[in-house]
């Protein structure tokens, strides 16, 4: 907010007409900006207020315990947090390379006439309602994947680490992995479009310079495009992660609704938002309060991810600036 307006505005008929409009504009914009903060603060306050009863009765167990049994007043949410994080990470691992690939293809490789249709089709993915992804996931994808998961498991069953990772108890179509796959499809459009915008800002001169030095297309991309767009890419990934963390109904349908912490990607899990969707209609008292508290946990989770990513971007930018 650095304003360099004249501190003593002209009065009377000499006053230029732009001044008033300027001030009105500034006030309106300021209010719009402040409104976001006010709404956020009110949401946080209401959620905390409504979740106080359960926080008071269960204390720290609310976030550190994985025992969830509303009928016995056990409200531990760790298994849900774990499921949210794991399914979102799977989604990132799968979606980011594909998205960056699509973005590079449409900005650097594809012939001009093909670029628009591809961009349009990818954006169309974002217009599909999430419940449609969920239903497709549970009715088509999950049954089809069970056999694939089984083969994958058999392939790696002897390998330490990977053997457990690609196991299930039992192997099922409704699992962390299926949820991650669905989320990957859902976040691909947003990550792609931000990556594309970022790649488009790389100056032609930087690319020409790489080509002039005899770089191949891939070497040019590595030497000119990536360093220039690192912070933009991180921002895109971050927004994608934010969407994956909060996605509700698609995950609720395919993750399997089983509140357990397990390193087995092919077995059922649960996520914070999915529990809220499934239980809210029936929950009462402390149970309802526990569900609202999970809203706070998602809130904090997204916030922490945002801060970590922002610090990382700032550090990278400083290092890049130092090298130059």
């Amino acid at each position, binding site marked *: 907010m650095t304003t360099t307006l004249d501190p003593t505005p002209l009065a009377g008929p000499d006053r230029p007409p732009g001044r008033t409009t300027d001030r009105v504009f500034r006030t309106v914009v300021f209010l719009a900006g402040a409104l976001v903060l006010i709404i956020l603060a009110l949401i946080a306050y209401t959620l905390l207020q409504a979740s106080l009863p359960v926080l008071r009765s269960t204390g720290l167990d609310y976030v550190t315990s994985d*025992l*969830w*049994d*509303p*009928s*016995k007043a*056990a409200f531990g949410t760790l298994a849900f947090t774990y499921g949210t994080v794991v399914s979102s990470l799977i989604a990132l691992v799968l979606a980011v390379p594909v998205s960056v690939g699509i973005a590079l293809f449409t900005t650097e490789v594809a012939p001009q006439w093909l670029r628009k249709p591809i961009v349009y089709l990818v954006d169309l993915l974002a217009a599909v309602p999430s419940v449609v992804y969920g239903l497709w996931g*549970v*009715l088509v994808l999950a*049954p089809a994947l*069970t056999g694939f998961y089984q083969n994958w498991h058999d392939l790696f069953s002897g390998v330490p680490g990977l053997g457990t990772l690609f196991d*299930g*108890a*039992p192997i*099922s*179509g*409704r699992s962390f992995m299926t949820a991650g796959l669905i989320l990957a499809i859902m976040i691909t459009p947003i990550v792609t479009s931000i990556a594309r915008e970022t790649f488009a800002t790389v100056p032609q001169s930087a690319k020409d310079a790489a080509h002039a030095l005899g770089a191949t297309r891939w070497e040019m991309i590595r030497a000119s495009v990536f360093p220039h767009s690192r912070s933009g890419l991180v921002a895109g990934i971050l927004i994608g992660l934010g969407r994956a963390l909060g996605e509700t109904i698609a995950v*609720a*349908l395919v993750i*399997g*609704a*089983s509140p*357990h912490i*397990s390193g087995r990607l092919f*077995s*059922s899990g649960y996520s914070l938002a999915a529990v809220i969707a*499934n*239980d809210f*209609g*029936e*929950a*009462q008292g402390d149970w309802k309060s526990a569900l609202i508290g999970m809203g706070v946990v998602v809130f904090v989770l997204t916030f922490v991810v945002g801060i970590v990513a922002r610090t990382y971007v700032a550090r990278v930018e400083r290092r890049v600036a130092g090298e130059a």
Partner: protein
Amino acid sequence: MQGSRARMLVPLVLTLGLVATACGSSSSSTNKGSGNGSSSTTAPAAKLAATTLNGSGSTFQQAFDETVIQEFTAQQPSVTITYAGGGSGQGQTDLQGGLKQWIGTDSLVKPEDVAKYKGPFLYFPTVAAPITISYNLSAVKDLKLSADTIAKIFEGQIKTWDDAAIKADNPSASLPSTGITVAHRAEPSGTTANFTKYLTLAAPTAWTLGTDKTVAWPSGQQAGNANSGVAQIVHDTNGAIGYVDYSDAKAAGLVFASIKNAGGKYVAPSLESATAALAGATVAADLTYNPLNAAGAAAYPITSPTFVMVYASQPDPAVRAALKAFLGYMLGDGQQSAKSVDFAGLPDSILTKAKAQIAKIGA
């Protein structure tokens, strides 16, 4: 789903068309006292004043409710009745808030929650239906299960189909060594509450997870949304077993097990065996009853009751008259329609008491 929505639209459209013409005619359902004015089953009842009865709650009884709504509003076109589903808990919350005139519920109000209601309420038992134990084993056609075996399967202690406990129930069957995949409900549900209540009654030592709308299921099980979601898991997974209400299990083409009842007989789920379970149940003063694990040789032991709940005090005369007539229809002609949507009608012993209770609805 498309069909049921269209069905719900029918009364709405009919009413819109007829409200204008029926406005002038004053209703004649003012016979106070015996409260028996609506239970006549053949003569068309007097025309009711235009009003709307909104309902919500148990999805277990939804198919029955939608059928009787359609039939009743065809006779009483000036009355609009809706039923929004949402689950028993949702229905009870709606009634507490006074948002609905009637709600459906599979579970009874807990004593500590009674104070949340605006006044005294009444339970009307309407229909009942078996909860099936459906399974997917191509080789086994006629599975028999006892309560202890079911409890151990759903607790995850029995992991394969050729386990000794299952063999003991099925001495002649050739059971495969397939692993068992247990399917249960993802969201809190009255079906879960009644199924687990049955296990606490019939297998008190083997079943340790207690009874509620949701329990702490062991890891490694599958969960589906609504009865149809569980049915879908069982349908798609070789070696799966799950509890599904009768009409959804039939609609999904599932195979279900015969369950050993309190009399030691293995009984398959059917409308007849459910009615037999109702006959053996004792009805409390508030008309609640528990047919789970009922006595009687022909009784299917996992038979779930379901209720309609309304406030006893209905100050609006049009709503009061419509509510009484609608309940009368549910307990009268509606009982005949129950079978067509795979629900078991109530035995006369319960019906008589329920019809008599309609008189308790007053201003």
